[in-house]
């Protein structure tokens, strides 16, 4: 029983990375209708900036994470305004092509700036160590990740359900023309939503740097899992992304324990099972 509980807790911390990246992906899709292939690259940029500001420049870890989020959010605004906006009225395939092109561009840009080799800075001293849970040492860093993921979840709920901005976003997502007619500046809403999604991807990336390697291409691995999660939860549904992240993170962890031979297959099996039962995703209305 203790083994199961511990493995589940490990899965929960993995789920938090997935949650941070899939939250941004699903928010952008839900409001803008853009399936952003480059979202994984924003995760990668957040990781590189986090590494540079914390591991090279020497800023405190928390400051480095916030600065990475801000920088990637600004980049997100530039991408939305400069590249995506002209494509809103066109066939969605143009958006897919553009964001896929961005993946290649950002990966090569990262290679040019940071080189091809992996980077991994030390863990902040205050996040080293462990606490004993179920008779085994549980990493403090993983506990920190779970707390951060929960905070982000709560923050997003407040933002979307309890603020004027959140109501404007929901109105825009429901009917763009009607929202504009009611005086909501929908272009501004689009930009701010894209910035928020980008910042969330960067948060996931920057938080990953002390325990995961940063290298060109890491975004590609993350975006595949994020897509799976958004499909499981229902495209564009934030609660679905949260539940999907927990499902994939925790069940994958149990898969490693119970079916090590099929670990790679396990995530896809979860998605296939959900799609068979609820093709629109678990939380889609």
């Amino acid at each position, binding site marked *: 029983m203790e*083994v199961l509980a511990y*493995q589940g807790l490990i899965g929960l911390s993995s789920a938090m990375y997935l949650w941070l990246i899939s939250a941004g992906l699903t928010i952008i899709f839900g409001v803008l209708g853009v399936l952003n292939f480059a979202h994984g690259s924003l995760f990668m940029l957040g990781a590189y900036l986090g590494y540079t500001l914390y591991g090279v420049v020497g800023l405190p870890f928390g400051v480095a994470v916030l600065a990475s989020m801000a920088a990637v959010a600004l980049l997100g605004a530039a991408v939305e305004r400069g590249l995506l906006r002209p494509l809103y009225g066109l066939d969605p395939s143009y958006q897919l092509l553009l964001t896929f092109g961005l993946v290649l561009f950002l990966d090569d840009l990262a290679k040019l700036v940071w080189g091809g080799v992996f980077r991994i800075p030390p*863990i902040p001293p205050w996040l080293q160590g462990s606490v004993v849970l179920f008779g085994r040492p549980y990493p403090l*860093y993983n506990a920190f990740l779970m707390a951060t993921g929960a905070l982000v979840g709560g923050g997003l709920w407040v933002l979307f359900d309890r603020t004027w901005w959140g109501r404007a976003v929901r109105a825009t997502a429901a009917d763009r023309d009607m929202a504009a007619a009611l005086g909501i500046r929908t272009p501004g809403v689009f930009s701010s939503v894209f910035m928020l999604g980008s910042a969330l991807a960067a948060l996931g990336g920057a938080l990953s740097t002390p325990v995961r390697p940063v290298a060109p291409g*890491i975004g590609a691995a993350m975006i595949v899992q994020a897509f799976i999660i958004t499909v499981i939860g229902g495209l564009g549904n934030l609660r679905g992304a949260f539940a999907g992240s927990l499902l994939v993170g925790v069940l994958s962890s149990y898969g490693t*324990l119970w079916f090590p031979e099929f670990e790679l297959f396990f995530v896809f099996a979860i998605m296939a099972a959900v799609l068979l039962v609820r093709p629109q995703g678990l939380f889609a209305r």
Partner: protein
Amino acid sequence: MRWVWVPLVVVALLAGASWSAAGPATCALGVPTIKLGVQGAASGPHADYGRQIEMGAQLAIEEINAAGGILGCRLEMRFMDEELRPATAVRNARFLVTEWGAHFLYGVDSSGSAMALGPVLRELDRIQFFTHAATHRLTEELVAQQKIKQIVRVSAPVYQDAVAAWLFRDRRDVRRWATIGADYEYGYATWAIFREQMRRLRPDVEFVGAAWAPFLTTDFSPHIAAVMATNPDGIIATPWAGEAVTLLRQALLQGVFDRIKVWFQAMGGSVDVLEGISQEVKEGRFQGKLYATARYIHNWPNTETNRSFVSRFAKRWNRMPNYSAETTYSAIYITKAAVERARSLQTDRVIAALQGMRIETPAGVRVFRSEDHQFVYAVPAGKVVWDPRYPIAVLGELKVFDPKDYWRWPPFRPLELSK
């Protein structure tokens, strides 16, 4: 009268320029340059291997060219990113031979890429000197069985990882073994050969757990937790490069080194891994329980050839040489020896010249095994330690075993590969 010298000087300068641009007029092989096509992983967490392959090749080429080339012919290199993808490796090889005109090929990092390249090399009829890909099947199946003569491996194959069985055979306190394996052929082969050797040396050991992590895994926490649930005494781990660093750091976070007796990181003697964990080694966080090997380590053997190589490499690149650098460097010198012996670039004649070759290289004496075109040499295993004489962690308390003991030898019987 003195103006008579002017045209002579001009002619001499032009001759010099043409020598430097197109190679010496005395190239005995009738080609402008000998072209070497090189591949390695140049992106992602494994990218340092490709970079080291490139650095090792570059150093060998610069040295050989400075000494007059091979039979008077200058060497020229083109490096390409293999991306650890078999399709890319095959595409690169085809380009390098048919478009660019490579006479010899070098690399690659991935076993999958190596297996895909094998049949293509026969079609292209170009020798590829494999300098990292480790699967035993490359030489045992593709050369010894299928007779693809164009395959030559200079680096130690996956047999090297089984040295762990010999390293720990006298540790009676280490009875329960588990693996955190790379989820592809290299990981399966290492686990299979290790278990085979261990069963022979220590019938009392148990193999209690396994977890498999695919390429580009960034979160090993579930794998570590799953394996630790089986209470192993020893863990043999095969993720490599940046993934090995990540795995070891995440293992520290879960307090693994408080609970196990030994951890063998198969290719943990690689420079990029040692660089990545240097701080933790310096702080003693692995508690002297971390062991490793590699396909060459820069602080062994203590020969003039090796010391000189390490010194020149460090001076040229400001890094310590990784094994993929040494194996590629040595492969180019092996090419030189074979071509000089064959006095030809033709595949058959160069392969004939390799027969019986015994050559001094930085890693020690390498001996060509004709049955499977594998160069045989010994690489030690040891404990990962901090030695103030070096800028990074190194392997210490080195133990060297005779390859006759732990390598596989022809005639080869198929190895059961399973997770």
